């Protein structure tokens, strides 16, 4: 019990939480991403930056199994998951949020979070309703509290405000026991206050949870990431610490140029 935690063993085996080698995804003749190779250590927080069409979301879709890559391998905690269906990767501790909300509009907030808690638990097929003492119900309640949605827990998700839907997205990704999370532009469309809350939530995640965040807002991205991967035209363009990336002249010319000015 004390010595053999299979999770830590598998991550120790490769040393990386996520490892991409030569991952390429073609849509017809168009290469959305080509020959992407990088790795992320367990607990590491990384930002993936790049202009629209740089292939960031396609990269996420390949990692989670929404698409199978055309070539290359993806390893999760040392295990080759390249051909695994999405739900098998999720059960290994991977989570993601979506840029466009993919929530269950016909269900309440509480049901959404409860489903997310069930997804990685046993008895997904249970025909019995949860009892009052069901720990997952309580877990769902706490998750809602953590993302400040307790007051609207019985509201249909389709009736939530945009900001609340983004918060719910994060709650769903935190359900279960995540080990590695992919955040796809979590701050998009949020107010300055909501952005501050988001940064607080991300920085407050337990240390063993690593993540990759795609973010256009440099202020958010560079405050929540300890390393940065720049993508351009579907390829990895630069890697480094936030400071290195910010001061890199090539990067400034390519991407930060207009953006950094507009952020003042």
């Amino acid at each position, binding site marked *: 019990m004390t010595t053999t*935690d299979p*999770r*830590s063993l598998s*991550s*120790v085996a490769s040393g990386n939480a996520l490892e991409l080698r030569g991952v390429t995804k073609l849509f017809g003749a168009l290469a959305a991403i080509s020959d992407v190779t990088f790795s992320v250590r*367990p607990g590491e927080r990384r930002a993936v930056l790049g202009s629209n069409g740089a292939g960031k979301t396609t990269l996420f879709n390949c990692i*989670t*199994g*929404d698409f199978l890559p055309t070539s290359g391998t993806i390893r999760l905690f040392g295990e080759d998951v390249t051909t695994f*269906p*999405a*739900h098998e990767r*999720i*059960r290994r501790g991977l*989570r*993601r949020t*979506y840029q466009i909300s*993919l*929530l*269950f*509009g*016909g*269900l309440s907030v509480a049901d959404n979070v*409860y*489903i*997310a808690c*069930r*997804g*990685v638990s046993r*008895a*997904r*097929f*249970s*025909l*019995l*309703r*949860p*009892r*009052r*003492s*069901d*720990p997952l*119900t*309580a*877990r769902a*309640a*706490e998750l809602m*509290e*953590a993302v400040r949605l307790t007051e609207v827990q019985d509201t249909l998700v389709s009736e939530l405000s945009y900001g609340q839907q983004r918060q719910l997205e994060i709650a*769903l990704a*935190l*359900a*279960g*026991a*995540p080990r590695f999370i992919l955040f796809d532009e979590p701050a998009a469309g949020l107010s300055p206050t909501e952005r501050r809350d988001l940064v607080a*939530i991300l920085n*407050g*995640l*337990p240390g*063993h949870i690593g993540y990759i965040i795609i973010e256009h807002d440099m202020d958010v991205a560079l405050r929540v990431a300890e390393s940065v991967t720049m993508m351009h035209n579907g390829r990895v363009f630069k890697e480094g610490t936030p400071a290195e990336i910010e001061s890199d002249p090539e990067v400034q010319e390519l991407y930060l140029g207009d953006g950094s000015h507009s952020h003042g």
Partner: protein
Amino acid sequence: MVQIDRSGDPLGDILNGKPAQTRPGWLVQLPLPFWAVAFLLLIMPLIANNFWLFQVFGWSFILGMIALSLMFLAGYGGMVSLIQMSVAGLAGYMVAILGTSGMAEISLNWPWWLNIPVAIGIAALFGTIVGALAVRTEGIYTIMITLAVAAAFFYFTRQNYGIFNGYTGFNRVLPPPLFGVNWRDPVPFYYLTLGCAALSLAAVTYVARSPFGLALQGVRDGPRRMAALGFNVTAHRIAAYTFASVIAAVGGILLVWQNSQISPGTVGIPVVIDILVIAVVGGVKRPIGPFIGAVIYVLLRTFSPDVLTAFGLSTERFKTLIGLGFVLIVFFSPDGVLGLWERWQARRHKRRDPLGDGGTP
């Protein structure tokens, strides 16, 4: 590797799997009209004559159950399946084949406690296999695949004489005389079908809020997201077919007992379509919808010939009436009769609301 650096913080506790305090479970409160209708149905044998009990209510409950199995798949799973009548029919056939019928050379004369569960099991297996084929498609293609299998099943029963006795089918298929009761007598049959219908309605309502039912609704709203939460979307959809098939199978066995016979006509394409019509007319958003649809269908089917004859029209015109009703419902209320009712309620509510434009009466 796993370290806790946020002990005491709610979010940190959750992520590190600490137990938490409990919250009241999911409660469903039944409205007053429900109890009124339940009471009325229970004392119905004191009010209605045998024809109403056996022919109108008995048949409505049976068709309602088969349509309910479609409602479960369509309403909660987003899968419009036309195989439900064939699943029901197969269960009915199996009771005739495994149990006792007028076709002594085919029927195996198994006791009721064996042939009924086996018949339900075989029908559920059939529904599951068809489901496994159908769930790989979406929308119109699900309808086409299930319709094709339903048509194939109809022609198979008509042409196969070794098992299904072809065109003739089976007659004298009767319920077992359990507890010394003839369950085909109007009053016992009424309570038998009422009990089965109430049980299946309760089962669907209950399961809709179970982890499986919630996940199924999640699969309906966002299959990609469900996969990203760790759910095997395909397995959930197939399991929904299994669950729905059990309800349809029970309905099919009751149907063969009511008619005391089964033949290919029972599983013909017109009947397959009728089940869809019943579910849509009643409404596929709520489990009670199919039963409302079934009552409307049975009333039209039973009484429209008299009305039509009075107007000097052929009794076959009742199909035109049902067709017109279907078109009107689909046109004015995609949620069926229940949808109309809810909209009317909402409008009445709005008129009473002091903050609404109407003001208080």
